[in-house]
């Protein structure tokens, strides 16, 4: 009887103490979802200041990660100068980024 009582007490205590903090899905409070303005970034990379940013700087690395698909597409097609004109290109970059972006890096944390 005593062992049964102890087992029940441990089970109840475990359930209470192991109650996790439920993190809700980011999409619950996601505002307007907009694509990163990668064409503007690539345009500015040629300018002073932005182009001289340390490639190992976490901010730079984060931006490059966001625009990875767009940069790869530009290198393949050689469309760097055409990326100056706006919505159509941005839309196509977004479409490519959807396919190419991997969220694995986030899972590593």
């Amino acid at each position, binding site marked *: 009887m005593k062992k049964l009582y102890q087992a029940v007490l441990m089970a109840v205590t475990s359930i209470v103490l192991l109650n996790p903090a439920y993190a809700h899905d980011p999409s619950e409070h996601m505002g307007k979802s907009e694509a990163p303005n990668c064409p503007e970034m690539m345009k500015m990379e040629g300018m002073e200041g932005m182009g001289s940013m340390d490639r190992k700087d976490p901010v730079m690395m984060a931006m490059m990660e966001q625009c990875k698909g767009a940069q790869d597409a530009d290198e393949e097609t050689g469309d760097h100068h055409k990326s100056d004109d706006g919505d159509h290109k941005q839309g196509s970059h977004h479409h490519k980024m959807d396919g190419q972006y991997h*969220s694995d890096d986030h899972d590593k944390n």
Partner: protein
Amino acid sequence: MSAKIVIASVLVAVFGGIGFLYSGIYPIGADVPHNKLTYWALTTLRESSIAHASKIVEVPDLSNPSLLLEGGADYNDMCTGCHLKPGKKESDMTLGLYPSPPNLSKALATGGREYGKQEGDKQARRQFWIIKHGIKASGMPAWGKTHDDKRIWAMVAFLQKLPTLTPLQYQIITARKSGSANMQH
């Protein structure tokens, strides 16, 4: 005789205080600032409490760029209304709340001195604690009830860099690409 005076004084103070509380004299509207003494007392209480409580917080490595992307997206979704972003100087919340939420997109005044690692860690502990536990009667919620520590640390990592970001850098880093919208923790 002196003991009676002391006891009488204490009783007057206690009942006077209770009477003041129930009188409704003190203006509680957010559009009427505290007097300087009250402001000093509340600010000191707040900062001392946060400093004390956050001492035990251990700061992890915040240099991973992925943290900036994760924390930045959350900041953009949940925090900019009160704490602003590069290029935004005010909002309904910054004008209407009292005390006004700090503009986290602006660098802290350091008097020109460099922020060393120790001070950087102290700032990170403070930010983590405030995000997780909130601040009573201030409008700052306790996000820890709905967000785990990993997610809060990502926001702290982003806050470390936020004052250095241009509007373009901010837009790129905080944009949520559709592939990341269903990230589970």
